[in-house]
């Protein structure tokens, strides 16, 4: 599991460079992401290189969102059809806003566009 992070316009962007977030790697992902977003209010998780997320990975992402508290925000960048479909199917796209690019996600957050779309 490899991730990197940077801050852009006050938003912490965490990019995942592995093709899967499943039960084998979710603990590592959550640990690394938790370190990367410590102290942040606005976070974007870039899953554009991820082609498969399972229910354990979903749980990890929800845990990260909850750790930011009710006033925080966690957006998802996803482009792969299977990942997009999963978030729609589970209705988690209602609490983890989805964007097609980091630019779009950061812009929405920077201009305070409401979470729910």
């Amino acid at each position, binding site marked *: 599991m490899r991730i990197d992070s940077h801050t852009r316009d006050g938003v912490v962007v965490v990019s995942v460079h592995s093709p899967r977030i499943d039960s084998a790697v979710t603990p590592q992902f959550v640990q690394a992401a938790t370190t990367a977003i410590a102290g942040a209010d606005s976070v974007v998780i870039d899953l554009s290189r991820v*082609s*498969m997320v399972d229910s354990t990975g979903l749980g990890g992402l929800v845990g990260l969102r909850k750790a930011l508290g009710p006033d925080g925000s966690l957006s998802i960048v996803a482009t792969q059809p299977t990942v997009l479909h*999963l978030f729609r199917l589970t209705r988690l796209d209602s609490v983890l806003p989805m964007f097609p690019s980091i630019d779009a996600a950061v812009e929405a957050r920077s201009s305070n566009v409401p979470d729910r779309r």
Partner: protein
Amino acid sequence: MYQTDGDGSASVQICFESRLEHIGLAGTAINAMCMARGADTETAGAVELALVEVATNTVEHAYHGVEHGLVRIRVRFANGKVDVEVSDAGDALPLERLAMAELPPIDPDAIDTLPEGGFGLALVCMIADSVEASTEEGWNFFRFSRTLARREPPQQEPG
């Protein structure tokens, strides 16, 4: 093990030790098999996800994380659909869990109550056309079927 029959059907068997890191390989394999049988990307990904969820359930709950259990997957392609059977010799899935499987509620106004689990079996039931679980002679079987939506053939250039 891979076998094709005269009627165009094909079956594959995959066996592995009950370790979480093997599940991704099995998932990748079934995705590739679905694509090779003409399925579209979304269907292949959905079948992969369903298999991964069932196999994860087996490793975590049937074998409780013990790594020397055997997980056996049988995949059969016939009549435009895929039939998947995952079997194990661990603890059986309580049948009421399957009967009651549904997605946990999501309340966007109560972030601290968001569910971090409970999606797996519900996802399998949503993805599959049919699902069943049984126990026979010390082996637990989880079977699901899914019709393979076929991807569009590439457009021919005129002329």
